[in-house]
Each structure stands twice: as C-alpha cells, then as structure tokens.
C-alpha cells in the first residue's frame, strides 16, 4: 500500500518535472504581444509626435521585430536608467532602447549583435567658452544617469579632479538644464544633439566637438539566459541590414550621412 503511494508520488513528481521549459521566445509568440522598452525622450530613436504617440527608429525596430514574430508590438516607455530594471522585473520582454553593449551590463543582461552605432558629441551652452571636448575640464557637466556617456563623463570629471558632474533622471531633464544654463555642457549622441539643436526646443545650445569615445555600438537586450530569443534577435538584426530595411529607416529618421557599419573589422563577430 505504502509503496504504491510512493511510486505514484514519484511518477507525479517526474511528470511535473518533464515538460520542457518554454523559453521567452515561445512565451512571446504564445501571448501574442511583444513588450518593448523604448526611451521616448531620445530623438530620433524615440520620441513623441504631436498626439503624444511614440515614434522613432527604435519604435519602428520594435514593430519590425513584432511583425517578424507574428505578434503585436507594445511600446512601454522607460527612461534610460529604467531600461534594464524594467527588463529584469519582467515588465518588458526586450528593450529596443539604444543600449550600449558594455561588459559591465553584460554581466546582468543578454545582448544581441549591434543594431546601430552612435558617435558622441559634446553639446554646450552657447554662452560658455568651449573650443573642444577638453574645454569641459573644470566646468559643470551633466548627463543622463546610468548611460554609457554618463559613466564616461563622470570618470573623466574624476580624472581631471575639477569640475562638477550631475546625473539627471532623463535625457529631457539634461537638455532642459543645459539650455537653462544650469550645466555648461553634456555629452550626447550626434543624432540626439543635432535633433535637439535643430528642433529649436532648447534655445541657446550648440554642438562643440566630437567626444573621443570609440563608436558607441548599441544592441537589443533581453534576459541573459534566453538564448533562443537572443539568437533570434541576432538573425533579425542581420536581416534588417541585408534586406535594406536598416538603410531605409536610417534615411527616414536620421537622414544625412551613411548608416554606420555595424561590424568591427578583424574580429569574427
């Protein structure tokens, strides 16, 4: 009697352990929705139109990825500091949010291959004397908390030993502070800098110089253990380029220049 209960228990336990772990790729397709974290104060990658709807390069990439998976896209707005926490907490499935692929972050999240590359520029308030990026020494500078540029800038300020660094909570706050003159300069991607300077929304700022950082490759991110989804996204990025969609969206949102080469020569991937 006892042994049959024991065997029944064993069978149930093994039956419970048997179904294969459905991974996130399956979950997304099954649920019918792809939730992407997108940063919406970062034109032209992400911003809002006159009816406050999300638009931008990243928004379009999210739609493309959803279309490839055969599900509907859902844009979840996050700020820069919130991208990875939103992913870790399960609030979003992927982040199509121009996330720089640093090794520190790779300890926590899984990166796809790069889908875009940024050059960074120094944007300064017009009233400030600054000839090149080294002119930032000793000044009050700021950037969006947690971004690649912010960490670079903060380390530079520490290295120079003078000047002040301010981490604002969002890109919009940084530019607002810059145009108000509360900070003298910031470092932002060339695209964002040009978009913000040209939009006329932030009077009194100008682009000074390129920042001496290597090109900032950004990738799609998801949870570190979701190999199925990461492989899928790698193929997706590759296909976006070879079908010409990458160039098409670049033309639509960024306009001038040539879309950045997403490879690093001399290395396999």
């Amino acid at each position, binding site marked *: 009697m006892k042994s049959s209960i024991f065997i029944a228990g064993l069978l149930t336990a093994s039956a419970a352990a048997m179904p294969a772990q459905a991974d996130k790729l399956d979950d997304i397709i099954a649920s019918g929705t792809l939730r992407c974290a997108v940063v919406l104060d970062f034109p032209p990658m992400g911003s809002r139109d006159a009816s*406050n709807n999300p638009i931008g390069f990243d928004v379009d990439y999210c739609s493309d990825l959803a279309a490839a998976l055969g599900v509907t896209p859902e844009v979840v707005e996050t700020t820069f500091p919130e991208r990875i*926490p939103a992913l*870790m*907490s*399960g*609030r979003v499935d992927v982040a199509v949010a121009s996330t720089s692929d640093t090794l520190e972050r790779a300890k926590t999240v899984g990166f796809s291959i790069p889908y875009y590359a940024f050059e960074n520029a120094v944007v300064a308030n017009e009233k400030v004397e600054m000839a090149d990026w080294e002119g930032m020494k000793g000044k009050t500078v700021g950037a969006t908390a947690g971004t690649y540029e912010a960490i670079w800038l903060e380390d530079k300020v520490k290295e120079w030993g003078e000047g002040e660094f301010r981490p604002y909570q*969002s890109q*919009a706050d940084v530019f*607002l502070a810059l145009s108000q003159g509360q900070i003298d300069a910031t470092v932002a991607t060339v695209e964002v800098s040009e978009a913000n300077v040209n939009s006329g*929304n932030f009077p009194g700022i100008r682009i000074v110089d390129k920042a001496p950082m290597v090109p900032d490759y950004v990738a799609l991110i998801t949870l570190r253990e979701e190999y199925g989804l990461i492989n899928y996204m790698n193929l997706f990025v590759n296909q976006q380029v070879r079908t010409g969609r990458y160039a098409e969206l670049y033309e639509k949102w960024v306009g001038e220049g040539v879309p950045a080469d997403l490879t690093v020569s001399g290395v396999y991937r």
Partner: protein
Amino acid sequence: MFDTALTANDLIFLAKGAGMTLIVTAISVFFGTVLGIVFGVIRYQIGPWWAAPMTFVLDIFRSIPLLIQLVLANAFVTTVLGWRISGFTVACGVLSLYTAAYCAEIVRGGIESVPPTLRRAARSLGMTWGQDMFNIVLPLATRVVLPSWIGLALGVMKDSALVYVVQVVELLKSTQILITRLQEPLFLLMICGLFYFVISFPIARFGGYLEKRWSND
C-alpha cells in the same frame, strides 16, 4: 505670456495623468483605511506588549522614504520573487500599506478617546463586543479622527507623485513628458501645481472646519 503651444490633446493627456493620480490615491486610501482599522483595533485589543511585533513592522513604513519603499517592493516582487505584476499594482500595494501604517495609529488614538465608562455601560446593557464597537465606538471615534484622516488622505494624494518610479504615468510625470516636448517648464508646472492645490485646498479647509466645529472650545 499666454502664447503657448499647448493643444487640447495635451490637456487631455494631462487630465489622464490627473485621473491616474486620483485613482491610485482612491484605491490606496480605501484599502489602507480598511487595513488601518483592522490593525488599529487589533493593537488596541491585545495591548502594547503583544502588539509589539506588528507595531514594529508598521513603524518601518513610516521610517523609510516612500521612494525607497516603492523601489524595494518593486525589485523584490518582480526580480526576487519573479511575479509579473504591473507597476500600478505595486504602487497601490505599497501606498495602501503606507496608509495603513499611519491609519492604525489614528484609529488606535480614536478608540482610546472614547471614555471607557461609556463602553462599559454599553456592555453592561448586554451588547456584544461587536455591537459596542459598531454603535458606540465607531460614531464617537470617527468624530475625533476624521480631521486627521482627511489630512492623511491628502498626504497620500501628494505622495502619489512618487509612483513615477514604478512606471505609473501620473500627473507630475505627464507634466514632465509635456515639458520635454513643449519646452515651457514654468507654465506647465504651474498647471500641475494648480491641480494639486485645487483638489487639496478645499478638502483641507473642510477638514479644518470640521475640527473646529467638533472641538470642545
């Protein structure tokens, strides 16, 4: 000065944010009050010594910044426990517990303010504990605590501005989004502040009026 790029769409967007503020406040105050009454009554009934653990836990909610409570609860529930719940739920949960912590104190003070003689008289008339609580203590205690409770509810409405950290788009966050697009910080912030003021001020005044009327000056 009134040359602004604000459109009707934007006002609707702000109104949605304001609606979110009110919804989060209403839910939190409701559940917080219910829980607060439960905790307050328990605390009163079983005395300070036995209630010490519960008092300790509730005290934690009043000694840590609400911002940290929200971030911590969010991180715990989503990353550690792995539950999939929305920021809205986390916000309402945390705010409810926060409200309950303050409300428990208020309720306890209210119950204590009812003269014991009245309650003993009720019991000696044959009322059960429940009847005593409901028919004697409730009306009297409510009179005493209503002004404080109104103050607490308004405080929660103002603190609801902090739920932006868990991705709930309430009024202040909506205002910030519009400021990004329209670049009119002062004007938009004035509207935002005016909203809070317009809701809070009359209710606070009313609470003060009640306090004056019901005090024994």
